[in-house]
């Protein structure tokens, strides 16, 4: 990425966003580790882990916004890519437990010993190495998205049909991962992690580092998305979103563009999942539940579809609200609120928070310039303000 491209792709809201994320990524871990526990400004460790979770959700939301907001692909199965990335990381963490498991088997994870398995299944090979697991975090979701997208986009499955088959995909994976003999721990999933790259997962330092890493991943992911959508390729994606057939008739290979962006998005979701698992300490098949994927879509809708910043903001806002309401006396009403959020946002706030704000900002800016022109014109004695007002 050249500096030129970087500056071009950043507008004001993006700069503010990046500054906030970077500041959080640096200040929160520092305050957690360096300040004394009783200090007013000290961020407790549980909050670091909680906000780390939100940041991972923000990356997932970003990946959904990239395909939905800019290419019109509504995936109701993005949670599957998130979970697959998580499982890849979880497998690495399982292999790191070694002899510290309940059964003390140096190679086999506990659940395999429990199932009386004699040797490691082939697909678990290599996950004792971090670089391999990290590669798989990208490759597994990416490959699945590539194959799925290749089939779907080539045969022009679009709109709600695509949404439904993505949902079927994550549902099929949910059923598969629930099976014990599938080799991923059945409905208990993977848990009881001990350490990552030699550091204790539970330790404050590791948690702070993971938080900082998640923020870094969010920044990098945001820059990648920004670079994609502000390039020429991004313009084609938007054209596909708004008029797919017309773009095709203009000579663009629509399916290739869609496939590219879908795969990139799946890889991002995988990274989000991989960062999520060590901070939460467990990955189980319920992450594949279709409801989770749909919920992730609503984060994007709340924040503002097609704004990137809004997606991240929406993820944090909705999840903060979820934590806030489900832990208090209002817990039984949370589903009412979430449901109402879905309905109200689609009905009343179709552009989301950021989109509505941007529209308002643009409008008021235009009014101000129009007013400026009008006053200038009035001074000059020319009557032109009517036209300017009509334009706005």
């Amino acid at each position: 990425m050249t500096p030129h491209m970087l500056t071009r792709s950043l507008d004001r809201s993006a700069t503010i966003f990046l500054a906030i994320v970077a500041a959080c990524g640096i200040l929160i871990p520092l305050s957690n580790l360096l300040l004394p526990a009783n200090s007013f400004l000290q961020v407790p460790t549980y909050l670091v882990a909680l906000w780390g979770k939100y940041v991972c959700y923000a990356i997932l939301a970003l990946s959904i916004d990239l395909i939905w907001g800019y290419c019109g692909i509504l995936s109701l199965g993005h949670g599957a890519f998130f979970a697959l990335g998580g499982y890849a990381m979880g497998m690495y963490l399982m292999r790191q437990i070694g002899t510290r498991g309940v059964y003390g088997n140096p190679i086999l994870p506990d659940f395999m010993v429990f199932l009386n398995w004699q040797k490691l299944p082939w697909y678990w090979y290599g996950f004792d190495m971090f670089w391999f697991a990290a590669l798989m975090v990208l490759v597994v979701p990416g490959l699945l998205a590539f194959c799925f997208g290749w089939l779907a986009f080539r045969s022009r499955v679009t709109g709600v049909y695509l949404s439904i088959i993505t949902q079927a995909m994550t549902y099929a994976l949910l059923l598969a991962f629930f099976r014990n003999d599938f080799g991923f721990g059945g409905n208990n999933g993977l848990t009881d992690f001990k350490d990552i790259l030699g550091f204790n997962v539970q330790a404050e330092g590791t948690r702070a580092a993971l938080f900082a890493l998640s923020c870094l991943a969010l920044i990098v992911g945001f820059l990648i998305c920004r670079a994609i959508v502000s390039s020429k390729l991004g313009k084609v994606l938007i054209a596909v979103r708004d008029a797919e057939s017309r773009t095709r008739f203009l000579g663009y290979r629509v399916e290739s563009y869609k496939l590219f962006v879908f795969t990139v998005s799946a890889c991002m979701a995988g990274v989000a999942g991989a960062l999520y698992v060590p901070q939460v300490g467990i990955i189980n098949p319920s992450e594949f539940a279709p409801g989770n994927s749909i919920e992730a879509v609503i984060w994007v809708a709340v924040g503002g579809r097609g704004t990137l910043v809004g997606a991240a903001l929406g993820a944090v806002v909705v999840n903060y609200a979820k934590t806030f309401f489900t832990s208090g006396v209002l817990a039984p009403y949370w589903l009412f609120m979430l449901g109402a959020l879905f309905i109200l946002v689609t009905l009343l706030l179709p552009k989301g928070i950021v989109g509505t704000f941007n529209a308002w900002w643009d409008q008021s800016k235009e009014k101000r310039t129009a007013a400026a022109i009008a006053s200038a014109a009035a001074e000059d004695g020319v009557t032109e303000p009517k036209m300017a007002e009509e334009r706005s």
Partner: protein
Amino acid sequence: MPAHLSARLCSLALSLFLIAFALPAFAGPFEDAVAKFANDDFSDTEEAIGVVAGSGNKLAFPIISALQDSRLMADPDSKKVYVTGADGKSIDAATGEAVASVPDSASAVRLNNRLRRSVDAALGSLTLQSPDLSTRLQAAQSVFKSHEETALEAVDAALAKETNRSVKTALGEARAAILLFKSDATEVEKLEAVATLKARGDQEALALLTGMGDQPTSVTKAAASAIGSIQNSLAIWSMVQNAWYGLSLGSVLLLAAIGLAITFGVMGVINMAHGEMVMLGAYTTFVVQEVIRTRYPGLFDYSLLIAVPLAFLVAGAIGVLIERSIIRFLYGRPLETLLATWGLSLVLQQAVRTMFGPTNREVGNPSWMSGAFELGQITITYNRLWILLFTLAVFAILLAMLRYTALGLEMRAVTQNRRMAASMGIATSRVDALTFGLGSGIAGIAGVALSQIDNVSPNLGQSYIIDSFMVVVFGGVGNLWGTLVGAFTLGIANKFLEPVAGAVLGKIAILVLIILFIQKRPRGLFALKGRAVEA
């Protein structure tokens, strides 16, 4: 005087004679045998079982069945044996007279496994000639299962008297089973036995034939061919069984998906809250049954008939409400509609959870929906059969409605070309509202049927929604026949995959197959053709 004396002698002789003849009646072989139960000795007990069972005494059956259930009490001191009933009343086993109480020293007569077998056999032969038809049939079947040689005589005797054809067949099969394992049966008898078992042709006959041990070569040969033919017929029956299960599952899928097909077909709206309409129908059934239970218990058998129109009205009214208040603002934005209706489904689920609690509510089966009957070698439960018939009826009514009513005509017009229909004076927004109400109402009806075979909980709808989508997408939009074919294809394919791959893997395979199928035919099996679908 001599005459006087002789008269006296005569009376003495008579009384002696009477005593001599009366005594055996008091302590005959039956009573002796009964007394042996009190010896607490397995071989004595076995002997007693044989004698009692063969005695023809009317007490034989209660005694042996009491023995089987450890209700036969024996007092080792007085050698008296009592039959205690389940109701706490007891009788003396030897005389049949009621006794006030069984002495404390009495304990239940013990059995071991060998004795249990002879008890079963004895009970079998005792009931073979019972006046009750179903008891006789059951007895013949239990003899078939135990195939104890001792029962052969009883079977032959029963066979000679039997007039009912099905009992006669069962007795013949029992006889064949005994003969097959009887070491001194002739070869001809054994060949006949093999032929009888072959005609029976089920899993049990197969087990007998494969486990019969050393036999003359001709019998072994006949048995081998019988085994082959039984296995063939079993394979066919298991296909029939799978097909039936498939039809049954297909009818459930069709019922759940048909309303979705209408709303999706006409309005292009994916209604994620469709499953919740099904749930509301099921809860309507629950409420109807509750009211009937508390107020009019006699009407319980009609509860479903009352619930069907009510569920249609409740779900349909809520459907119209949803369309008017939410969905009509979202036309042309199918993906947003999807999200809004998903939110709605969360609200509805939580509302029902708040009102009725999160646990399963009990919905009873009316008497005409419980039970099962046998057809060949498969069992068909009435509730599944009724649901299949009900689904087909709903389908036929819906089809007729679309074909012959004004609303149906308008709905078809809007499905094919909304703008053209509007230009011709059809109030499309009214059609939309009614269509959505109709689709939701049918989902409500589906809920009534599904309440009979599934748990009525707030999550009821969730378990059907993805399957319903699959059916609609697979079958194609705008064509009810597509939904019908889609539902039954998926149902049958699922049930045929299940024995091969297991239930979960079978389901995964179906999902993957649908995903691949959509690549081939992105608009389903029966796609609408023309420009309208691209809009």
